């Protein structure tokens, strides 16, 4: 049995999520090949060849793969699908755009965002915004799967030595033409959309402290900044920072509550966060009842340490 993993990259570098996808492929079992399709992406193929557990890298290098448009890529994958029992990609914007198209071309179902592998044909995936985990079994000959990276520990980026084999590019379908791409870099993410949020409460003591301590931390984590109402009322930060019942409701992957006691009105706005970290000097603060990781400490010491530790 062989599996094909579609590499995620930007022509220059391999994206780390590919390592989680390979990990999922390993769970399924079999010989793992990686397809690198792009333009001037030999370095990516070289990196893919080093991934632990990968036995072959197929490289399709052509100008019309530079923009990773789904139409051209899907045709290429279809042309190279023969012999594979599974085709996998990361459940990123790119993978989700591409794989359903591949599946339809192969006349098979696609299995979205798996978080666990039960057997080569049975997988676990979240539905209803993660409120119900479905275990699904595929009856198709080829399983086309996107992989949620948080479900699988990445394999080692080094240690393998797969051969890189060039494959022929498929024809340019000319269905889509890129006219612009904008990657937002420096600006801090919005509260509502952020994957990580750093919130400060009255414990920050002043607006000056809030900015001096929390901004560098947020920069390190590419996080949005939030606050408790007490911090807003005290004038540390503007209104639109407020998280809670009467502020914004957020559910990031990671939420830091720093100097926040954890009043129910505040909890109402953040209790659905995936991981909650609380830093508070009062070990009985209610925030610790919902925090996955609680650190009882003076924030004026702990936050600078944390920034340093994050490197």
């Amino acid at each position, binding site marked *: 049995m062989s599996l094909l993993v579609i590499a995620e990259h930007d022509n220059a570098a391999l994206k780390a999520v590919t390592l989680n996808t390979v990990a999922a492929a390993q769970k399924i079992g079999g010989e793992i090949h990686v397809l690198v399709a792009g333009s001037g992406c030999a370095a990516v193929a070289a990196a893919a060849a080093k991934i632990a557990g990968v036995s072959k890298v197929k490289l399709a290098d052509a100008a019309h793969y530079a923009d990773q448009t789904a139409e051209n890529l899907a045709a290429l994958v279809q042309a190279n699908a023969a012999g594979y029992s599974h085709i996998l990609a990361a459940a990123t914007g790119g993978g989700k755009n591409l794989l359903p198209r591949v599946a339809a071309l192969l006349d098979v179902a696609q299995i979205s965002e798996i978080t666990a592998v039960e057997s080569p044909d049975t997988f676990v995936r979240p539905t209803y915004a993660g409120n119900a985990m479905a275990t699904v079994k595929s009856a198709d000959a080829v399983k086309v799967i996107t992989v949620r990276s948080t479900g699988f520990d990445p394999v080692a980026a080094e240690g393998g030595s797969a051969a890189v084999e060039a494959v022929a590019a498929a024809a340019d379908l000319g269905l889509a033409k890129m006219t612009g791409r904008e990657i937002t870099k420096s600006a801090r993410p919005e509260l509502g959309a952020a994957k990580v949020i750093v919130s400060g409460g009255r414990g920050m003591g002043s607006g000056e402290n809030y900015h001096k301590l929390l901004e560098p931390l947020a920069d390190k984590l590419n996080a949005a900044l939030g606050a408790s109402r007490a911090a807003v009322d005290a004038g540390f930060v503007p209104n639109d920072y407020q998280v809670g*019942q*009467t502020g914004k409701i957020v559910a990031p992957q990671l939420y830091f509550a720093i100097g926040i006691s954890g009043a*129910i009105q505040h909890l*109402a706005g953040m209790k659905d966060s995936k991981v909650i970290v609380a830093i508070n000097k009062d070990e009985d603060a209610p925030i610790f009842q919902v925090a996955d990781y609680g650190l009882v400490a003076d924030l004026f010491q702990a936050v600078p340490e944390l920034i340093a530790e994050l490197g």
Partner: protein
Amino acid sequence: MSAYTPPLKDMQFVLRELAGIDKVAQLPGYEDASPDLVDSILEEAGKFAGGVLAPLNWSGDQEGASWKDKAVTMPAGFKAAYTQFAEAGWNGLSCDAAYGGQGLPKLVSAAVQEMWKASNMAFSLCPLLTLGAIEALHLSGSDQQKSTYLPNMIAGKWTGTMNLTEPQAGSDLAAIRSRAVPQGDGTYKIFGQKIFITYGDHDMAENIVHLVLARTPNAPEGVKGISLFVVPKFLVNADGSLGARNDAYCVSIEHKLGIHASPTCVMAFGDNGGAIGTMVGQENAGLKYMFIMMNAARFAVGLEGVALSERAYQHALAYAKERIQGRDIAGSAASVAIVHHPDIRRMLMQMKSLNEAMRALAYTVAAAHDAAARHPDEAERKRNQAYVDLMIPVVKGWLTETSNELTYLGVQIHGGMGFVEETGAAQHQRDARITTIYEGTTGIQANDLIGRKIAREGGATIKAVIGLMRQTEAELAQQPGAEFAVIKTALGKGITAVSEAADYIVANYGNDIRAVSVGAVPFLKLLGIVAGGWQMARAALVAQAKIAANDKDPFYPAKIATTRFYADHVLSTAAGLAHAVVHGGAGGMALDVAMF
């Protein structure tokens, strides 16, 4: 701040199973109102209420309407919301299709209005008053007046007001002193001051159409000398465009306990030479027209009662599920949400059961109103009209009085947080407070009920209604189970209480009107409680039939349990009220005024 989710399920249940939307849809002219269309209307109205109006409820309360230089500025967001409301065509839902309305039944309008009122009571008063003015013009206006005003008012481009009250003329409109002087060209100049005029001025629409009660020169004294005039803020040119600013100005607004976003205006007519208006209908018939319209207005205010109680209930329920405090009274390892405490449960059930009873009563009266207006059979029209006339003061008086009790419970469930304005629970209580006052106080409703609606006709209509209630009681007797036994007994005792009190009123109104009138409000409440219980019992019977037909919807067992609660906690008070009616007159009037 609180969210509002229209109770669509209960609304639809009442519309279908108790008020008979399918029968209403068979009335001439209402054929469009098929149950599935009504479902879509409720669904979409609910989205608008929850999405656009509800978010402005709290901010509108905090900011309030403001007044400067004889003009009112509405709180942030109201103008945009109103424009959206009007453009979506909601204003014309029940209005005549000939002038651009959708001509839907009162019954549909009742459910939709409940949503506007619950989501944002202060906002809802603007379309409410406009609707009142539309109805007055539609009923008594000339063709010229109708074509000038109705299309724009129905489209919501112009709003309307009702200018009745004056400083010396509140409950007693006979004391009105505003003057109307004929100009010889068919127009009149209006002079006088009106107070408490809801939405007398605002910045949400391009024109405001004031309907004003005033006296012509040489008009007879008292109620028989009052005429109705239409006085626009901006005069309307022959081509329909807006002309000169009329001499009708808002000279101040009141600072109130509630409905802060609804401007309550002192209106000065004619301070600068006279406000130009035209007479609506016949001279000296103004109050008669007002009385015809009054049913609609009083019904609408009654709906405010159930609407605010529903909002308060949703608010309190959400808090009760979230607030952790104390252990379960029967023991628990950890602290529990307060919804587990029996006393909180009792309060929530009190709110829930009364809300459902009030809604059922109001909507069934709305359906009777539709039948009274459109039924092809004259006798049916008459029968329904008599029922509507009897129940209007009850819908107005009982629903609004009850909402004051229920919004109070809403605050109580919140504990200290309820007393804190920011929680928002107090707003519902403050907003509810006006509902028992305007459009005729509860006292005035109760006088109307016992006098004109019962004593004057020797109790004929109420006896017929009691007969219908007894039929429901008989059906209850045939149901199995302890719950139905409780409901049957409680309803039976309640009906007996109403019957005895009504007999007392009919027998004594003529010879001891003072003593009987002491019991007017208790009787109004008694009739409300029992009529509400009657509708709850009908609901329980429907639920029972659904369960018997193997419907697994948990809504139905909940309906029966809620009815049972109502029987034990609400219907059980009927006997006490009947006692107050029958025996309480003497005590009420025993002290001489000088002895107070």
